[in-house]
């Protein structure tokens, strides 16, 4: 929707330039732009493009495994197996028992990844927004509170994994507080929640920080006007704060979703590898690579890649469209191409400026 409203103003101007090409300033700049962008493009190609292409190629191969019965040696090299690395995901050859019953190890990891993402991101968003609301208020010691809330985000994940491992140890702080012995670090349902706790602790501040940036762009006059009209605090939060902070919040939640889908170090560092109730797709893929089954590992990584891509695009499509729809712009106004700047625009521009 955004593009639909914005395009008219863009197309009218270059529409003239395209015909005549008499703009001295922009003439011939296409080549210059390419030259200036080339270093960046080359770096991206080297660090991201080429590895991705190699991964995709790798996923169609499989290392030979036949053992020579006389010498015990394994035939070297790889063979092309087509899509078998992908189709084997559905063949159920490697079943494990996790929280969702006995199923293929891939699907167990897939479900873990999905549920971690849903549970963690929801909790992080709620807590993060609450943190942002606290941080945005003016009160004595606000600087200390802001710094304090951000500490977890500043700690490297693997360090917080080991820290939480101590907390959730059978003799650890958490069990002392609860007054009973829960074996969080074994491989059971409570392990899942131990990871959720650690992840929420660590990354809610991230959402808090980004939301705070969004909150600070909301002009005080809006609230003053609301107060004059007799709006309650809850009404102000639901009708003013949330809609105006939403564009920022959506980007923050999007980042967290993408990040959580790739979760690796927390379950690995806290609970350990090979524990199916907390095994994510990243861990499974890594384990397969460690077992020198690079083809299968690449295939699983690519499935994860596509999964992340689909989730992310759905996010942008569904929530991104909502951003425009919810910010008080009536739908017919959007089709009114000649009148893009109306009453709703100042608020939007302020929000957009937060990025």
């Amino acid at each position, binding site marked *: 929707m955004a593009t639909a409203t914005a395009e008219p103003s863009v197309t009218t101007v270059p529409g003239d330039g395209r015909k005549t090409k008499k703009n001295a300033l922009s003439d011939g700049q296409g080549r210059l732009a390419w030259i200036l962008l080339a270093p960046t493009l080359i770096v991206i190609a080297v660090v991201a493009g080429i590895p991705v292409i190699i991964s995709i190629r790798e996923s169609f191969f499989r290392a030979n495994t036949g053992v020579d019965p006389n010498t015990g040696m394994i035939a070297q090299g790889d063979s092309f197996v087509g899509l078998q690395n992908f189709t084997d995901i559905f063949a159920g050859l490697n079943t494990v028992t996790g929280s969702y019953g006995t199923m293929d190890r891939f699907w167990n990891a897939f479900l873990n990844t999905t549920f971690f993402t849903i549970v963690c991101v929801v909790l992080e968003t709620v807590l993060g927004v609450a943190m942002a609301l606290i941080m945005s208020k003016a009160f004595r010691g606000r600087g200390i509170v802001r710094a304090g809330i951000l500490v977890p985000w500043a700690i490297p994940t693997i360090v917080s994994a080991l820290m939480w491992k101590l907390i959730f140890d059978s003799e650890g702080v958490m069990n002392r507080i609860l007054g009973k012995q829960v*074996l969080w670090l074994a491989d059971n349902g409570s392990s899942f929640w131990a990871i959720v706790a650690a992840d929420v602790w660590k990354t809610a501040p991230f959402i808090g920080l980004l939301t705070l940036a969004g909150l600070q762009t909301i002009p005080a006059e809006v609230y003053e006007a609301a107060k004059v009209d007799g709006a309650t605090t809850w009404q102000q939060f639901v009708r003013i704060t949330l809609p105006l902070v939403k564009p920022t919040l959506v980007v923050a939640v999007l980042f967290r979703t993408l990040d959580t889908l790739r979760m690796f170090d927390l379950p690995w560092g806290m609970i350990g590898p*090979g524990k199916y109730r907390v095994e994510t797709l990243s861990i499974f893929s890594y384990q397969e690579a460690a077992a020198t089954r690079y083809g299968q590992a690449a295939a699983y990584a690519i499935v994860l890649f596509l999964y992340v891509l689909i989730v*992310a695009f759905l996010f942008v499509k569904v929530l991104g469209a909502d951003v425009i729809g919810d910010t008080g712009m009536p739908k017919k106004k959007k089709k009114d191409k000649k009148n893009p700047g109306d009453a709703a625009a100042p608020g939007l521009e302020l929000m957009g400026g937060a990025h």
Partner: protein
Amino acid sequence: MRFVRSGRRVAVAAVSLSALLVAAACGGSSGGSGSGTGSSAPAVDLAQQGDIEYWQGKDSSGNIPKLVAQFNSQHPQGKVTFHELPDAADQQRQQMIQNTQIKNPKMAVISVDVVWTSEFAAKGYVIPLPADRFPTTGMLQSAVTGATYFNKLYAYPNTSDGGLLYYRKDLLDKYGISKVPTTFDEMKAACDTIRKGENDAKLGCYAGQYDKYEGLTVNFDEAVHSAGGAIVGADGRPSVASPEAAKGLQTLADWFKNGDIPKAAVTWREENGRTAFEAGQLIFHRNWGYVYNLAQTDKDSKVKGKFDVAPLPGISGPGVSSLGGHNYAIATNAANKGTAADFIAFMSSEETQKSNTLATSQSPTLEKLYTDSDLVKKFPFMPTQLKSIQGAIPRPKAVEYGDVTLAIQDAAYGALQTSANGGTADASTALQGLQSKLQTLIK
């Protein structure tokens, strides 16, 4: 308007970049593996001299640089540089494999965990060692067996390890138990007497390592072997679905259920168990030789001078340890294999092994050192350790050892965790599942 637009652009850019990074990060480990290792070099030249690197995991004793300097001073035609790897075994293995794949000519001598031998040999990462340059006379037979694959020696035994039973001598004496238990039944009887008398709810009877990691495989193997079972039979085929093997696992599960093994032990590795033993919370404890010195000298240890070691207890037969240890192998792609061979010979000599044992308390592989008076004086558990290693059975030899050990851990951990949660574990069903999985892994 343009701000909304750019906001969305940011989001789109973020999505594409993140997605790309996922694929790149995951793909990173899989890149560069396309080519084989080309191990078909027919004749191995063990004469070429020149500078090499020795690759080993973290050297916590600090003794390796001294030994390397000593070698370099007597060996001018080729110097050794010590290349230290991380502490974690799987990371050591991974770095060795990666450097084999990129054909790193400097990586010459590598310290190979005994369970990696089959994989490294079968995949051609290391070369077979000729008997004339690498004699095995006087070495512990079990250590040599552990380093052998298809009747060829691929790694030269350097350090060995066996499990020991640490026990609270003071408590046994206090309750007049003169005979150190040699079976689980005797151990239980001793525990019942002591725990009744001490009346301490925190005092557990026995524990080993039961978290889901390599230590569980070690402890499971010991239980199965001590009950007269086997994981892989004499014919090299899996044979774990036997009543004897089931008895081994069932015993551990039952001990968890009735609380003789503390329930928390299902999350314990070596260090958790050592901490509990040193805090006086265990009467009996299965661990490796390194604990002896620490429990005697740690400032927090409450059991200084109050414990002793014995061979592991059996379940229905004699106690059997799993075999640990690290051995030296020569990497296939090493440029200067002559220096590598000389370095291994130096590191494995009687003098070096003795000085290394004195400095690190790691168990040597030369049998006669276990009765050496200097060593026994410093480490009184040496004769017990020798018995443990002599009777030790290696963990299953498999090319895909990682899959085998995970399958074992899946079966054992399921049963133990069920019992720790108060349920009833069915060991024989678990082992039938393990048997069918092992049949696909060990051919």
